């Protein structure tokens, strides 16, 4: 053993030195360093040209928290999570329960429901800005059919977010459904069978056997809903750009609008740092508190 180890120790070293650096370098330069730099830049009032000089300490963070639109964006992110839990998840789960079985057309329906998930957010947003268009849109046509004037959902601060939430459900429920289908198909069928033989009703089987077995998948689905909400941006741009009156921003679209578009590097970096802290805190605590058993 000892004799044979030596030659491949040298090989080992060169393999490590050859294989690791490209990934580590890319990751460090484009993922890790920017986050560190965001923390540094967030202390400056800087328009991005030259080097940052005007140190203003914590002021950018104060500006962010003072900004009404940021509060709205934060609330919107929470709202998306709530809707994901209360609407999207039951929808996905119920469809998975139906479509996990092999019957004629099941696969086709699965594919159809999954399809919105792979379409680009930008295209989806544009399609729905057509659906909601007050003049040419599908919604307008339905209203016209009843001789009523269609509401411009995207044009009112009261309804813009509602309209976006519907698109979110449309686009993402298929993904969650697939997660559940995969879990259901990998499930031990004997348990269900045994329960049925024992005379359990379908509801009891669902309530006491299937749902508990699905718990890890449900947790995962919730996890993705939350992560998805925290990075939602592409969908907002074609639909409302965060408007009207900044009513439909998410934190990322807020960052883009108030940081990137205005080249307020310090301010935008502060938003980025806040978002980073939220993401990391969430990921760690979720793992710790909810996924401990996995």
């Amino acid at each position, binding site marked *: 053993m000892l004799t044979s180890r030596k030659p491949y120790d040298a090989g080992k070293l060169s393999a490590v030195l050859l294989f*690791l650096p490209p990934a580590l370098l890319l990751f460090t330069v484009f993922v890790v360093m920017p986050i560190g730099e965001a923390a540094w830049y967030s202390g400056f009032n800087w328009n991005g040209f030259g080097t940052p000089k005007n140190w203003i300490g914590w002021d950018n963070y104060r500006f962010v928290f003072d900004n009404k639109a940021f509060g709205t964006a934060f609330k919107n992110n929470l709202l998306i999570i709530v809707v994901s839990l209360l609407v999207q998840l039951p929808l996905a789960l119920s469809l998975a329960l139906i479509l996990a079985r092999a019957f004629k057309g099941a696969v086709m329906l699965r594919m159809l429901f999954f399809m919105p998930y792979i379409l680009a957010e930008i295209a989806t947003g544009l399609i729905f800005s*057509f659906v909601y268009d007050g003049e040419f849109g599908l919604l307008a046509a339905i209203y016209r059919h009843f001789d009523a004037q269609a509401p411009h959902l995207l044009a009112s601060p009261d309804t813009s977010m509602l309209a976006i939430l519907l698109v979110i459900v449309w686009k993402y429920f298929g993904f969650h459904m697939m997660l559940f289908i995969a879990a259901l198909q990998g499930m031990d069928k004997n348990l269900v069978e045994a329960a049925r033989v024992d005379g359990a009703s379908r509801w009891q089987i669902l309530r006491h056997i299937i749902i508990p077995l699905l718990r890890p998948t449900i947790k995962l689905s919730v996890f993705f809903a939350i992560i998805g909400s925290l990075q939602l941006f592409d969908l907002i741009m074609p639909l409302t750009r965060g408007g009207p009156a900044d009513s439909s921003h998410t934190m990322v679209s807020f960052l883009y609008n108030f940081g990137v578009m205005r080249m307020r590097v310090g301010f935008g970096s502060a938003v980025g740092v806040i978002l980073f802290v939220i*993401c990391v805190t969430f990921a760690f605590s979720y793992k710790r508190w909810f996924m401990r058993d996995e």
Partner: protein
Amino acid sequence: MNSEQDFSETGLDWAAFLKALYLLGVVLFVATPLVATVLGGFKSLGELRTNPFGLPQVWEWKNYADIVLSRRYWQLLQNSLIISSLTVILTLITASMAAFVFAHISFFGRNMLLNYITMGLLFPAATAILPLFIKVRDLGLLDHYLGVILPQVAFSLAMSILLLRRFFKELPEELLEAALVDGCSYLNFFRYVTLPLSRPILATVGTITFVHSWNAYLVPLVMLNSDSQYPWPMGIMIYQGEFSAEWHLILAFITLTLLPTIILFLFAQKHIVAGLTSGAVKG
């Protein structure tokens, strides 16, 4: 589970009927916007206003033909294809090499480095978009495909390495032991044994990366500045800005730009579904 059993019991016809109704409702919910988009591209603006749902009374092939024959459309697809393909290739190369080391070679600090990479799963590229922009600018890569590709590769590394590492670890360890004793180098083992055996996972990782890159908007939006380099999501937004209310043209353009995604989906649905869901599950 088999379905006959459910239907054999009494009174379940109702349940089946409700289920079918439910499914039909969801089908309409999902399909209507898509179908209306495709058909809308075949209508004139005037007809779109009066008849957005139905089949066109007059099929306006010109809407689609003009776009298909335009340079602009192909330029967008070409840009997207270049960016996405290079992103996939670079991701697969760098991630599989790193994953190989993480899976097979133990050395001091390996776990630390693995944890370091895993950090990349925790936050989206958007959080650091401004410093990322400054960095790409300072590297002189603004307005170059690479300015989009490199950040995209970097942000897809974490997930890719984890998926690949898991798969590599499941390859029999004895194989490597034996090969090394026979004087095969790590490099050759990786090249001639690991990679060929890992085709399924490479395809999966490649598909995830491709779909993400193909659909990406924020990074190209910030890094690219000229028509000649825009990928299609940016191009379609500009097209919409230009033709603001001419929905029939916009719908035709949307349909045509979605076409490659849908074709890819039909051909590679197994990889896409497996990739996007299992990738997510294991991540």
